Every structure is written in C-alpha cells, then in structure tokens.
C-alpha cells in the first residue's frame, strides 16, 4: 500500500452526473474518492468510526437509551435515502431540460433546484420543532396526572426531552442542514466552472450536463445530510430531523410540485430580462416600423444601500437610451451577441449622453431573496462587472416609522455616507409588505 492509499480508490471513473447525462460508458469505475487509512478514522465516516454524538457525550440533550438512539439513526438514514430517491425521480420525471427553454437559464438552475430541498427542509424543521414541543408538553401534563412509579419515570424522561427540545432553536437546526446543501452547491458551482472551461459542446449535451451536475450535487447534499447528523447531532436535534423527514414529507409529488413552482417563479423573477433588449419608440401616433426609433432597454442589477442604514437589498434597474432620429444611430452595425456587453456602447460606438433617457439606473423592483444570487451571477455574466451600489432614500417610508426616522436622522447628518449615485425610487413607492388597514397609522394613506 506504500503511502496507505488504496490504489483502486484513486482511480477516476463515472460519477452520477455521467450517468444522468448518458455520458457514462460501461467499464467506468464509480466514485472519485481518495481514501486514506487513518487510524483514528478507518472508514472515513464519523458515525461508523466514532458512533453517535450522544454515545460520546453526556448532557441534558442526550436523553435516549442506546438502543432507541441506534434505531432512530437507522430510521433517519432510511428516510433521507427515500427523500433523495424521491428528489432524483422528480428531477428525472419533470424533464427539466424541456421546461427550461432558454439555455442561458440552466447554470442558475443547478443551484436554485438545490434550494428547493433546503427550503422545504428548513420549513419542515421549524414546523416539526413546534409540534414536538407541543406534543411533549401535552405528554408531560398527561403523565404528571398519574401517580404510579412508571408514570413518574416516564414523566422524568419526557420532561428531559421537553427541556432539551425547548432549548433547541430553528437557527441551530438550519445551520446543521444548510451546511449539507452548501457543500452540494459548492460542488455544483465548481462542476459548472469546469464545464465552462472545457468549452461548449452541442446544445443537447450541454443541457444534460447541467442536469447531471444538479444530480451529482444533490447526491452529495443528501449524503451529507444522511451521514453528518448521526455523528454530530444531539438526541434532541436528531429527533426533530427524523420527524421532519417522516412521510408524507419529502415525497416525489411534493418535490415535483416544488420544482415546477420554482421554475415558474424563476421565469417571472426578472432574471431573464437582465441584458439589453430593444423596443420601438414612436414620436407620434401611428408611426410605422420604418419611422420608429429604436429605444434600448438595459436591465441591470443594483445594490441598494438605504439612507437609514438598514440592510442593503438588490433590485432590478433600467438604464435606457434612445436616438432622436435614425440619422443619429450608429452607422456601423456590429453584431452584438458577445457577452459581456459594454454598457457604454451600442454596436461598438459610445452612447452619446443625449441619447440616455436617464443617466442613473431607474428603479424597477426589488429582487426576491431566493433569486438574488442567481441575478447577481447573471448580471456578472451579461455586463461583466459587479452590480453598482446605489443609495436610496427611505426617509419617506412612513409605514416603517423607526426606519423612516433613522433615515431622516442620517440625512440630517449630511450628504450620503456612501459617496454613490442616488436611486430614483418611484414617487409613490409601494411598501415592501402589504399593511392591513387596521395596522395603518391614523391618516396614513395606503
């Protein structure tokens, strides 16, 4: 063995990605791992090597007996495997390559589709924790009403569980599961970069490869979810995780629905509009295609910094330009298919300041948090530079008194602290959330 490495394990071969893409050839060897014969961790799996967290530690949140804990872990792993199968089947059945008509969209989908699982998981954990707390409290109340010794013993166990559950927070649980999906996303991003560096193959193969990357990333995420918590989670955490995976959660139909909804939301998210598009601008009514002037719509992402100092947000903005007459249009028509696009030029020639319909980006709408990462990536690809930082005055946001006050205070201190252009929010900016009438301040207009 020499260096203690297994020569077979060092062989490279087919991955899950290759199989989904059909790029796998018989004779390829599954797996690309390099294993070492570490004395402390002979198998490389923490749970196999060192057993469960609560077998190695004691504390208020370790309240199960070893047999129950082992059974729980086996069941938990089984449920995660089932969830993974359900997700893979949903991906295969949904024929994402057909739903996503625009090839440019595919890279974003790989990471967005992993969000589908993690979002569902996080929602499930929150619900489960709440439910379990309520159930244990009910069991505690019921057992306490009995006087027998057995009931007293049960009460003690349930009460330990209740205390442990009460001390659990959504944040702790989400941190544990988020790490698994972050690892999957990281692998997916690196896979996509490798694909990009390798150059473009034919369109169909490229679509399949993206889906294969997604499949691979999902396998990694679910594997982490299956193997890490048994070794790292307390009994209380394991219990919540286990309950959150119990049927009917994480089934194929659910995933199919979630994926389809995510695709729909993505389609209307505005991300696909990032870039340059043209529309005919008529100076007067009834103009024809020959007399219309092309107006260009540059959709960009901007980083909105608020006067109040509240957390920044990302928004879509427009930076349009048009030519007064056909004679002022650049004469030399160069193909403009290359990316990134130079924002200062049109068909290879500088855009004259007078052609700008507005000098600063005009606010369109805030980007939904679930699509911010994808929007920034798309912006970078299309425009070749990071989104501009823009200052927004939220002192007029009367629906948020504190925020508005803070913004006014900062305004009084002097000019913008950022030294950046100002974002022209619409004169009647909609509140970020709908405020019920009964909660409105007296005299406040909707």
């Amino acid at each position, binding site marked *: 063995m020499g260096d203690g490495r297994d020569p077979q394990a060092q062989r490279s071969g087919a991955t899950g990605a290759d199989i989904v893409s059909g790029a796998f050839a018989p004779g390829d060897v599954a797996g690309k791992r390099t294993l070492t*014969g570490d004395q402390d961790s002979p198998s490389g799996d923490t749970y196999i090597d060192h057993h469960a967290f609560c077998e190695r530690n004691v504390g208020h949140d370790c309240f199960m007996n070893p047999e129950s804990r082992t059974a729980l872990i086996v069941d938990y792993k089984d449920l995660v495997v089932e969830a993974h199968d359900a997700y893979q089947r949903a991906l295969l059945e949904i024929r994402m390559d057909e739903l996503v008509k625009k090839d440019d969209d595919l890279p974003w989908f790989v990471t967005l589709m992993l969000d589908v699982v993690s979002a569902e998981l996080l929602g499930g954990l929150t619900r489960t924790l709440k439910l379990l707390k309520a159930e244990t409290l009910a069991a505690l109340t019921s057992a306490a009403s009995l006087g027998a010794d057995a009931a007293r013993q049960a009460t003690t166990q349930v009460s330990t569980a209740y205390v442990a559950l009460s001390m659990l927070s959504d944040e702790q649980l989400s941190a544990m599961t988020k790490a698994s999906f972050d690892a999957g996303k990281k692998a997916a991003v690196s896979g996509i970069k490798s694909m990009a560096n390798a150059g473009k193959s034919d369109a169909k193969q490229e679509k399949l490869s993206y889906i294969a990357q997604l499949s691979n990333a999902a396998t990694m995420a679910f594997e982490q979810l299956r193997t890490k918590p048994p070794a790292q989670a307390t009994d209380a955490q394991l219990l919540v995780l286990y309950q959150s995976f119990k049927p009917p959660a994480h089934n194929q139909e659910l995933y199919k629905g979630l994926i389809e909804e995510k695709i729909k939301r993505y389609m209307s998210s505005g991300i696909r509009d990032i870039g340059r598009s043209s529309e005919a601008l008529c100076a007067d009514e009834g103009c024809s295609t020959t007399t219309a002037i092309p107006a260009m719509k540059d959709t960009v992402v901007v980083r909105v910094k608020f006067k109040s100092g509240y957390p920044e947000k990302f928004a879509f903005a427009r930076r349009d330009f048009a030519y007064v007459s056909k004679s002022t249009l650049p004469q030399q028509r160069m193909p403009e298919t290359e990316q990134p696009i130079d924002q200062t030029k049109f068909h290879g020639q500088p855009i004259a300041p007078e052609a700008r319909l507005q000098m600063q980006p005009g606010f369109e709408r805030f980007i939904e948090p679930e699509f911010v990462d994808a929007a920034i990536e798309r912006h970078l690809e299309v425009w070749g530079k990071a989104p501009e930082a823009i200052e927004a005055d939220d002192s007029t946001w009367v629906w948020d008194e504190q925020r508005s006050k803070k913004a006014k205070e900062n305004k009084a201190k002097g000019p913008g602290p950022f030294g950046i252009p100002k974002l022209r929010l619409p004169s009647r900016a909609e509140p970020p959330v709908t405020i019920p009438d009964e909660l409105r301040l007296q005299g406040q207009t909707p």
Partner: protein
Amino acid sequence: MRNKTLIVSLLMSLGAVACSHPPDASKLDVSVSSYCRGLELELHDAAMEHRKLAPAIDEKRLSEDQLERANGELGLTSIGNTPETRRARLRDFESRLGFCQRVRGMDAAQASRFEERLGALHEGLKQDVMSGAMPSAARTADLLDQMTALAHEVNGLPLQH
C-alpha cells in the same frame, strides 16, 4: 420496503394511466424511463458506497462495533454486506433490472445475453455456497459497477410499445 413501495407506486401509476385515461404513451414513457434511470443511479451510488468503505472493511481495520455500523450503512445505501441483507437487496435490484429489461425492445439474442450477464453478476455478488464467504467489498463495488453498466445499456434501448 422502500423499493417495494417504489415498485408498487410505479405499477399503480401504470395502472392508473392504463385504466382511467386513454393510453398516454409519453407520460408512461417518462415514468418508466425515470424509474429505470433511478435504478441506474441507485446502482451507481451503491458501488460508490461500497468502494468508499472497501479499504476499511477488506483490510479488517474496523472493530466489531464499527463493522456493525458499516454493515448497517451498506445495507441501506448499497447492496448489503451481510448474507441476509445481501440476499434481499440483490433480489430487489435484479427484479427491478428485470422490469427495465422487459419494457425495452430486445430481441431473443439480446435477452439471452442479458440473462447470462445478470446470472454471472448474481453468482459473483452472492455469498459463496461452499465456503460461506461473502465477496470482498472491493469486488462487490466492481460487480456493482458492472451491474450499473448493464442497466445503462438496457436503458439505452428503445421502449417497447
């Protein structure tokens, strides 16, 4: 249990499509294809799991306690490492692969070669009758790779209508 559920749900979906609606070949094709692709992925993952743990198992670096947990993991995510789980999981993989083969348009010669290869894989993967020994984890991973390749070939054939 999981795989039985899967087969039942697939058959139910086939039944539902066949009974309650006019034949919808495309929907059926998608269901069958994704089922068989899913099996291929599962076989691939099984080989990967076995290969991951092979050095520790084959070189007997695990304590009894650790081996028990490793076997539990392989029984769940792969083809099992004890005679009982191996038998059950092997039968399950074979029956699912058999289904995927039957729905494809295969001529008699192809079908016979398929049976032959699957038979050889079965012999290699199961517990040896005479010695009672299980194939090594590394050998199991290799044979699972071959089974994945067989599934891949089968899935590459057109569906029989």
